[in-house]
């Protein structure tokens, strides 16, 4: 076991660094720049039952120390992901991958997870419950403990692979959602998804993003993410993947000291395609500086 080795829901990873879904595609753009097999794993582009184009453009805005996106889950749909993306992914990445799944009904989630469960390279299923529930008045599954539990149970029924529920921070009490997922059988949790935000263009006096609002990510949200990871780690027993604005090896250590078993890195990949490679390379020296022998001792 190396100094950086961690275990996530029973699967060992060489290090805790996981590029977050939506910032890493299916890996091959990054494989042009570095050998992505240095990663712990990565969470691939959020996949839905049907193909989705997503929202109109502009989908991106900048903010101090971060960005806002309203991409709207653009993806080719689970059938094409399995037929076209995963074979390409397999050529450049040789470890277990994290499959990120979104849906707009409980049945959607179960269907997509069942299809991806059959893929050998999929090690974990990460279930994004920040999407609106079209049969439940459009409220996000992740804002209501009962709805979050319902998705968790439906997904657990169709797979034996570890199920990680990805939580939205846009709630009053994230620990209530976390406990509901744990009670419904979730193997792990990941948080936080993006925080809702917006920008207005002073010249046009209109929102910069066509969808008006979007999700804020980047270092701007790191303290909020850290606080929520801390709270959730004290509310549940299952492992937590911490994310939200991580951009350095020090951020990884801080997130793991809050209780995270592993971390995801999102927006940093977009501004520096080598961000994760650098963070992994920097970890041993940062650990030396703070007297940390192995990452697993931080648990």
């Amino acid at each position: 076991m190396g100094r950086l080795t961690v275990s996530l829901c029973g699967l060992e990873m060489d290090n805790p660094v996981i590029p977050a879904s939506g910032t890493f595609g299916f890996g091959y753009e990054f494989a042009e720049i570095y050998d992505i097999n240095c990663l712990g794993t990565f969470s691939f582009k959020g996949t839905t039952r049907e193909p989705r184009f997503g929202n109109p453009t502009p989908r991106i805005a900048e903010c101090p120390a971060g960005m806002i996106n309203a991409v709207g889950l653009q993806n080719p749909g689970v059938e094409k992901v399995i037929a076209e993306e995963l074979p390409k992914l397999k050529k450049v990445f040789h470890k277990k991958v994290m499959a990120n799944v979104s849906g707009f009904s409980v049945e959607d989630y179960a269907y997509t997870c069942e299809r991806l469960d059959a893929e050998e390279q999929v090690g974990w299923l990460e279930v994004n419950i920040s999407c609106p529930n079209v049969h439940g008045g459009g409220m996000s599954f992740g804002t209501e403990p009962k709805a979050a539990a319902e998705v968790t149970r439906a997904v657990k029924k169709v797979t034996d692979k570890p199920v990680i529920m990805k939580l939205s921070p846009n709630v009053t009490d994230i620990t209530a959602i976390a406990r509901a997922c744990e009670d419904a059988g979730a193997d792990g949790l990941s948080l936080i998804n993006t925080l809702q935000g917006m920008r207005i263009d002073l010249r046009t006096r209109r929102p910069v993003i066509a969808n008006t609002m979007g999700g804020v990510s980047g270092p701007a949200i790191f303290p909020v993410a850290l606080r929520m990871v801390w709270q959730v780690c004290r509310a549940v027993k299952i492992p937590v993947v911490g994310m939200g604005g991580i951009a350095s090896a020090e951020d990884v250590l801080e997130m793991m000291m809050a209780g995270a078993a592993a971390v995801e890195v999102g927006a940093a990949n977009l501004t520096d395609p080598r961000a994760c490679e650098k963070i992994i390379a920097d970890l041993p020296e940062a650990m030396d500086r703070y007297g940390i022998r192995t990452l697993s001792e931080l648990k």
Partner: protein
Amino acid sequence: MKQTIFRVESNTALTDSVFRMTLLGDTSAVTAPGQFVNLKLDGFFLRRPISVCDCEDGRLTLIFKTVGKGTAQMSRLPAGAEIDTLTGLGNGYDLTRAGDRPLLLGGGVGVPPLYWLAKKLRAEGKEVTAVLGFNTEKEIFGEKEFRALGCDTRVTTADGSHGIRGFVTDALPESYSFFYTCGPMPMLKAVYRRTVTDGQFSFEERMGCGFGACMGCSQKTKNGYKRICREGPVLEKEEILWED
């Protein structure tokens, strides 16, 4: 795509708001006119995508307009400043489509990417007509440079203060073999309606990453979804779907 450090060689104002920056570094990933680079500026989270105006071995020329705080900061970078740069982004124009008498139509800061294209087409012995459109005389740049390449160069201004009064579509030659264009959206739409041959359009879009990871710049086309940063910024005339 390549990520390397470029060093600013020169940075000079061409008009009140348009600047010409030359950069020295590894240009090996820059393969076609119409591609862009993505620059990391201190203090800004997202990179700034800028089209390549010219490229020689080891030297890039960028011409950019100051439209916000990021490009304003870029305009103040002194010689010697280092910039973390992603190069070789986007597909670029296809020179093999040009025919004998290609037409280039540029509007404002849509003119720069056509310069390297013109240079390459002239080197192949093509008879190039370049129509450069601006709002008014004091915003004009590049006229001399296109003339020096031996292009039939026509300048239009919306207010008639220099050259032909009107828009680039008011100065089209009688015949041409193919066209290449880059400029503001209303101009691109007019070019689409008024041109009679096939052509290639270069589009602009707000980008997250600039290399295909975030899906921030996707557009619908007749050939499916395309990322402006990856399968674009250059699209074929026949595949464009205008969304009003």
